[in-house]
């Protein structure tokens, strides 16, 4: 019997976790001698108070949607893909190759090719850890961490030795040609009469990211493959008994996950920088973990959580600009969100479950006692590999 109604699991627990993280963040701000209310005002003003702020918020959110979805898809198969960072780096390499070495007549064709290249490179980078997990039982968390570092070394080598233009000191590729310039929100909204900031980097990849959210929803909840992924995530032995191949699900889930992480590159490499630079991902792969945990691995949750983190990122940048609070405050908030929604989930869940149990008993006492419900495991999404007590 489910102890808690579904809404409590989906809305209440993340909300309480978020509030706890917010309270602690406020204490941190007070601790370094700043005013948390003023800081929040400044963040809201800076991130949401102008189309410029919105442009940056949505730009960051686009990155986080891709990486958050990547982590979510793996979570559904109870795999923890911590390698989104490396996969996104390699995705950037794919985008750079697609943009630099093919003369595209129009940006739309380039976008399709770059998206495919990014997904392919990201998926390829996830394929080796996935295969090692599926076939050799190597722990995917460790191998994907290792692959993040290897990706950084590969990118470093490629940028310094292969892609750097002649005579340039900067370890970065050449600028992409003008033909592959993606329309920014300013260019997209101007024809319909909406004035959007010219300087903000949000671009058409936002729509691709939203498309990816819908794609993941369809994949996980409306296809046989998605059903198999969820079944495998719920119970490996159960899935095996139903004839679902563990190797196949592990491979497919990780390939989709890596592909999504790689696709982030169309936003940051093709849409914003328009060349491949070192450390283009700026930790977005890791923020995907926080986004997926907060969004409860559901595409719509990921969408909302990505916008929240986009707001935090842009707001944090504004804070660093106008106050003495460094940008690292956002890293602390991110850590607290991961801590409360992920690791300390039971700290919030256990008292709530007790509360709902007590409430259920009181109701049961008022009415005639119902027949004992057949026991079956709680239908809570076990997305984080946690054993149910």
């Amino acid at each position: 019997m489910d102890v808690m109604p579904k809404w409590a699991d989906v809305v209440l627990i993340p909300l309480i976790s978020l509030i706890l993280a917010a309270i602690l963040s406020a204490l941190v701000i007070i601790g370094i001698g700043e005013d948390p209310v003023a800081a929040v005002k400044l963040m809201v003003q800076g991130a949401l108070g102008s189309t410029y702020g919105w442009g940056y918020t949505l730009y960051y959110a686009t990155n986080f949607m891709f990486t958050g979805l990547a982590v979510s898809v793996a979570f559904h198969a109870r795999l923890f893909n911590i390698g989104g960072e490396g996969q996104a780096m390699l995705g950037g390499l794919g985008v750079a190759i697609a943009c630099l070495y093919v003369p595209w007549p129009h940006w739309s064709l380039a976008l399709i090719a770059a998206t495919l290249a990014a997904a392919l490179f990201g998926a390829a980078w996830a394929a080796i850890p996935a295969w090692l997990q599926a076939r050799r039982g190597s722990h995917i968390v460790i191998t994907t961490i290792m692959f993040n570092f290897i990706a950084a070394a590969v990118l470093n080598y490629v940028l310094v030795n292969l892609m750097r233009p002649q005579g340039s000191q900067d370890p970065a590729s050449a600028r992409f040609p003008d033909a592959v310039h993606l329309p920014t929100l300013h260019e997209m909204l101007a024809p319909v009469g909406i004035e959007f900031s010219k300087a903000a980097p949000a671009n058409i990849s936002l729509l691709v990211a939203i498309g990816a959210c819908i794609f993941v929803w369809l994949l996980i909840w409306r296809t046989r493959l998605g059903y198999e992924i969820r079944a495998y995530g719920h119970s490996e032995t159960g899935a095996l008994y139903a004839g679902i191949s563990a190797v196949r699900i592990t491979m497919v889930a990780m390939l989709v996950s890596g592909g999504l992480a790689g696709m982030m590159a169309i936003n940051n490499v093709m849409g914003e920088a328009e060349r491949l630079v070192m450390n283009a991902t700026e930790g977005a792969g890791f923020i995907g973990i926080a986004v997926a945990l907060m969004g409860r691995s559901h595409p719509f949750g990921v969408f909302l959580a990505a916008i929240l983190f986009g707001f935090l990122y842009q707001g944090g940048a504004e804070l660093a600009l106008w106050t003495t609070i460094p940008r690292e405050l956002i890293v602390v908030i991110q850590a607290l969100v991961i801590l409360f929604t992920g690791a300390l989930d039971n700290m919030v869940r256990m008292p709530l479950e007790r509360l709902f149990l007590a409430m259920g008993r009181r109701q049961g006492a008022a009415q005639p006692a119902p027949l004992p419900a057949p026991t079956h495991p709680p239908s809570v999404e076990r997305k984080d590999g946690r054993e149910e007590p």
Partner: protein
Amino acid sequence: MDFLTLIQVLDSTIRLATPLLLACLAGLYSERAGIFDIGLEGKMLAAAFFSAAVAAVTGSVWLGLLAGIAASLVLAGLHGLASITFRGNQLISGVAINFLAAGMTVLIAQDWFSQGGRTPSLMGGARFEPITLPFAEALSGVPILGPIYSELLSGHSILVYLAFAAVPLTWWVLFRTRFGLRLRAVGENPAAVDTAGVSVVGLRYAAVAICGVLCGIAGAYLATALQAGFVKDMTAGRGFIALAALIFAKWRPWHAMYACLLFGFLQAVALRYQNIDLGGIVIPVQVMDALPYILTVVILAGFVGKAIPPRAGGEPYVKER
């Protein structure tokens, strides 16, 4: 490469292997007790900052060391709370701790010292000074053995000797004491330990605490001995290299030392040479950077002897009712 260059590279190998070794042994205790710890990096970073900060303020490196250990213990306690008491996901807890340390150290450093997330440079008593072993001066003239003794073995800070002394100590504790037997048992089969009437929770907290102390020393070494002060993100992935070394060593203390020396050697070579020319084939420096990780993946893949982690690793223990 002549003999003196070799001595210099090996000397720097020992210095660079020390933080890896301390963190690796820290992970060894934790993972042998069934608590996965990818938060080694964060604990080292927190310890590096607090040791440097307290040493800079008080002028005493020993107070700094204590502060570093305390900071690392706080994070270890958090990891224990999340993964033992609340039976949360140990990997996610580790990720959170890494970020928490990365953010908080810079935030506090900026608040205390206003130097862009770093501490003032440490001088004099605020640093661990090199120790000259007895007769090092006198023996330096002896061919071959002289330089090995006076250059390679002598002249490190006390924490280096401590780290290498911790290897046989760890072996003895884990394999020759009752506590060690129980610690290993709790990582393999906690239910059996529980049946024997020994507290699983207590043992695991003890392991996590030892891990915290060792990570604290590792971080303090980074900031007060290897370098003179804290800079942002100064651990630079060493926690993960230590994790890699731990897997490479298949969770055994002596092998952990060899793995850390190997990875330290790779770092020393990458630091000294940019690209290595091996008779026509040039090995780029990036290969040296990536080699520890590649080697770990190969070991994990089981092509060169299989690395099997403690069986109950990563799983919270739930007492039967």
